[in-house]
């Protein structure tokens, strides 16, 4: 077990999460946006593991499992959808989807 206090790990997780959020907002490619979402999920995993350490039991680590499974399922379905839409429209730019405007 490391000597580094858990606060630093929490800080890292927070920074990663924020990078993920900013990435979702700034990039335009649908798949890249998806990957930033994965980054956010990873950051959450780190949070859980650190909390498990802080609490002294393994429940946080079990939750990481679930996050992982859900992430996997989500990636599968999401990528399938992106594939289909990309074939239809021949573009991955998220900004093209703007019919529901004022």
């Amino acid at each position, binding site marked *: *077990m*490391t*000597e*580094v*206090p*858990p*606060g*630093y*790990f*929490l*800080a*890292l997780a*927070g*920074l*990663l*999460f*924020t990078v993920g*959020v900013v*990435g979702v*907002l*700034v*990039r*335009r*490619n649908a*798949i890249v946006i998806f*990957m930033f979402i*994965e*980054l956010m999920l*990873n950051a959450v*995993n*780190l949070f859980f*593991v*650190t909390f*498990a*350490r*802080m609490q*002294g*039991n*393994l*429940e946080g*680590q*079990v939750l990481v*499992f*679930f996050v*992982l*499974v*859900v992430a*996997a*399922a989500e*990636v*599968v*379905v999401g*990528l*399938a959808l992106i*594939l*289909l839409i*990309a*074939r239809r429209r021949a573009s*991955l730019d998220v*900004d093209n989807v703007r019919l529901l405007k004022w």
Partner: protein
Amino acid sequence: MSLDIVVFGAMFVVTLGAALAMLFAHNAVHVALLLVLSQVGLAVAFLLQGAFFVAAVQIIIYAGAIMVLFLFVIMLLGVDRREALDEPLRGQRPLALGLGALLTAQVLYVAWQGVDLAFADGGETAIQEINSDPGNVLGLARVLFGRYVLPFEITSVLLIVAVVGVMVLARRIYSVAPAGDAEAERSEVEEVAV
């Protein structure tokens, strides 16, 4: 300077650096590879905190399977697409950066403050004990199939649903043409329909 801190420092730089670099990469493949790097760094972080099994699973499933899937899709859709990094929407970048900074500040504040509350040392020794006595995997198993067996079963259903869903999404509709009609056979595989 103990090894501990050096490893942590290196891991910190690699993970965060890779994540930041993702923001500026043009090519989607580069983004994916940087994400893999970031995830490996996270696996190290898990190891550092006594989550051995989760670290392994992170590498195998996340970096090994999910990211590969990403790469497959990128390949399928044109690997050399360059994404323009300009920003056509007004105010999007300043807002995103500003709000992101705010959020960071809040999270860091909580992280720094929250650590002082109640938890501190006791947790680490407990985990070390679990890791040494039944071992990390067995300990996890006891929790997973003990208290969390219902969520476990539900997530398995979730996986099945996801698989079935994707199969439905990806099916192709074949039109039936009379045998011997070569032209019809060539145009057999119609467009993918959902």
